[in-house]
């Protein structure tokens, strides 16, 4: 079973990298871009067969290591 974790800076936390990308897109002429937020995607391969258990485990991984919940939010997708 695989899981995909999306980690993003929380809304309201300044994202300097996203800002830099937005600026660069504007320079390239993509004037419609109003905002860019940059995050990361983490893919996990698990030997757990129970989807609910696996999702719970990945949630715990996010809380303990994969995301810093002071500034980041996360979303788990089982695949």
């Amino acid at each position, binding site marked *: 079973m695989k899981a995909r974790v999306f980690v993003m800076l929380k809304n309201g936390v300044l994202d300097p*990298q996203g800002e830099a990308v937005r600026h660069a897109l504007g320079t390239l002429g993509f004037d419609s871009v109003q905002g860019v937020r940059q995050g990361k995607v983490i893919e996990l391969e698990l030997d757990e067969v129970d989807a609910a258990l696996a999702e719970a485990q990945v949630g715990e991984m996010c809380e303990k290591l994969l995301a810093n919940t002071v*500034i980041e939010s996360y979303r788990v997708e089982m695949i």
Partner: protein
Amino acid sequence: MHAAILVFPGSNCDRDLKVAFEAAGAAGAAEGVKVSMIWHKDQELPHGVDIVAVPGGFSFGDYLRCGAIAANSPVSEALRKHVARGGYALGICNGFQVLTETGLLPGALRRNADQKFTCKTVALDVATQNSVFTSEYSVGQRINTPIANHDGNYFVDADTLAQLRAEDRIAFTYVDNPNGSVGDIAGVLSANRRVLGMMPHPERAADAALGGTDGVAMFRALSGLAAGIMATA
């Protein structure tokens, strides 16, 4: 006084810290300072450690997030126990990032607002004298220390910032904020005032021939730490 300096793969200020502690010990208290270097896989600290210092550098290559892997390594559990029993801890630069990742200090360090790795000497204002770390400075004293980081942009939410201010837990502020840190915060104390995290490097300002001497007062104050002081301070 016995200082334990944690060493992770990628730490690069561990020996600078050792020199700063030992110089302060040689110059001051008769007992001097004993320094132990502690590898990240060690699960226990030597008996009698007064302060654990978490050095600057790029532990584990800054993978995932700065300090995140180090905060979950075996020695960090020993660090948590040391702090839980009232021990002192000092985290500088990457060490500050480790201390926030362990939850021993509030907040988090984000990418610098201008996206740049910033390496220069900056002026700090001492914001409180009420901690052993800052006891030999005076409030409002301006000191010069180097910064060298890419992720020094301190973040706390508005409620936590208000709490830090109310509890006088901001140790140092930037005179000219170099990275976007909330409240110009350069260093912050734990609730019991025995854990300090700061992005600037006092250990790189501890020798007249190398970057100035404004950091010496911190190591001099720490060199006086002893078991007796720990019990009462």
